[in-house]
């Protein structure tokens, strides 16, 4: 795959320059819809961990001695459940206190277009 004779002349090398990439990506960034339409992941993390936390905490509260003996005498379900519940609540509270910032207006995206 590395036959030297297949190398193009230097003139053919510069078919694609940094300016092409910058122009292309800047154009795509203006049309991009991720910022406006993508949901906030904090809601999902918060929801999943509150649910997991509740389920595993209940499992811990109803565990028999065999489960606790297995875990070296620690009620590991209870502690892990409470830990996950707290993490879930943290994410939901963060989302509540600092909601998703509205996407920047389109005008701004146009301004940062490179001059050169």
């Amino acid at each position, binding site marked *: *795959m*590395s036959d030297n004779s297949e*190398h*193009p002349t*230097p003139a053919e*090398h*510069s*078919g*694609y*320059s*940094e300016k092409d*990439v*910058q122009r292309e*990506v*800047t154009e*795509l*960034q203006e*049309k*991009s*819809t*991720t*910022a*406006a*339409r*993508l*949901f906030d*992941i904090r809601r*999902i*993390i918060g929801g*999943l*961990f509150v*649910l*997991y936390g509740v*389920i*595993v905490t209940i*499992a*811990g509260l109803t*565990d028999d001695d*065999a*489960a*606790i003996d*297995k*875990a*070296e005498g*620690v009620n*590991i*379900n209870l*502690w*892990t*459940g409470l*830990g*996950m519940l707290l*993490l879930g609540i943290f994410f939901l509270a963060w989302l509540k206190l600092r909601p998703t910032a509205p996407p920047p207006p389109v005008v701004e995206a146009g301004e*940062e*277009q*490179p*001059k*050169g």
Partner: protein
Amino acid sequence: MQTPTISPTASLTSPTYLAAELRLPTNWLDYTLLGIYFVVVLGIGFAARRSVKTTLDFFLSGRSLPAWVTGLAFISANLAATEILGMAANSAQYGAYTVHWYWIGAIPAMVFLGLVMMPFYYGSKVRSVPEFLLLRFDRWAHLLSSVLFAFAAILIAGVNLYALAIVVEALLGWPQWVAIVVAGFFVLAYITLGGLSSAIYNEVLQFFVILAALIPITILALKKVGGWDGLTDKLTQSHGDNFVTAWGGTGIGEANPLGANWLTIVLGLGFVLSFGYWTTNFAEVQRALSAKNLSAAQRTPLIAAFPKIFIVFLVMIPGLAAAALVPGFGTEKSGYQYNDAIPYLMEGLLPNGVLGIAVTGLLAAFMAGMAANVSSFNTVFTTDIWAKYVVKDREDSYYVRFGRLITAIGVMASIGTAFLASSFSNIMSYLQTLFSFFNVPMFVVFIVGMFWKRASMKSGFWGLLAGTTAAMLNYFVLYKQDIISIPSDQGANFVSAIAGFVAGAVVMVAVSLFTSPKPADELQGLVYGTRSPGMAEPPAEGDDAWYRRPALLGWGAVVLAAACYIPFSFSF
């Protein structure tokens, strides 16, 4: 699919199947927790679908994500299950040397990526690592690196899939093909639907599930062996003094289980392998390129560095505990392989409930490890190979459709490559081997190209080719044919990496001296000390807060990692 060059190792080790007695006592509760996770994974894919309009949305999340999201995805993409099981295996086999993979083998490189390299990557607006090589060198360097990367990504995705199948078969009793089809289907579904956004969001979620799985295992394992003191006492008795130190026995000429001395650790692992992996592996860098601005992109690897410093305890302690609890752990007479360390503790310590979380965490990590490679593969294959050399200048929506198609093909191909992974007992050393072949030469080409203006257009291609060849020659000919004597696979990886680095650098300098340099005006923003015209962006609101300063975050991580070495560097 197995290549003859790799198969000789198969005779040295039995297959990587976990011990048959490791069947986990899962019940309906554990399967409920697992089921909920799969529903959420698909839900993320469907919900992210409406945000995909352009190729930039599909391949780079529209360059719009906040730094904490990309930072956690950055660490998660690395924290695949092969890393978790493999690093626990490393600890059971080599002891506390494992900390080197984290504190010297990751943190300096992650900080370098954030502080030094990210302005060039993000500022030049490239969409992939090979695209940067196209701008800095020429199409030959670009094509070679794209093809090598696409090849490596599929191989490593296959490793993850295979590892998942054998673990799931041993732990849950599912036939291998069921595990492969189920995991392959979910990864295929959520990446095809939501593109990189859904891969990244799932990685962030996975980060927390993994922590919820590993923290209880670590705490209970420590309790079982009698705390840290009990652990070190037991291991010192059974494995010798050096087993619980970071540097003991690593003097040049001294023998140690790792088969490496401090020089090969610092140069091979700490510099060449680690910089190669963290700074040029597109599966990692892609997460930073999807950040919303330069400051967020710089902070991506820096935010990831802090969890990375501490995660070593969550994999090393279970590995050490397994070695302390089972005499001869990892050898034939114990009935366990090194990779069994974490599953062994899950089976013995976790009651139903937390057990379900741990199983979910492992499966999530396998899928995320595969997804990170598939989502970077489809980007390189579409934007770097297909759109530049095969079908050029079509409308953007065509490439989004093609990206979805190639995602499906990539998943199918990784199922095929899964078989390659079967010939190494220590999964991690297989990955390290691959990285030394693919990432190290890339890193040479980058570092020379970024810091030496004179490096010519042609030097990129030849440096890459020479480096890859030298690393492979060292591993497969000199080491595997016993021409030079290196005591372990890991030690050989470090030497291959150094060989690849030196060969790549020498060839680049030699070729540059005889061929023409790239014109100076085409190097703006690509070489250290220059700036690209469109690069300056006004800082976003709030980014000047002290805790968001890249330099402070970066140096803070380096100092913290160095401080972590102190208790492991002197005898107790």
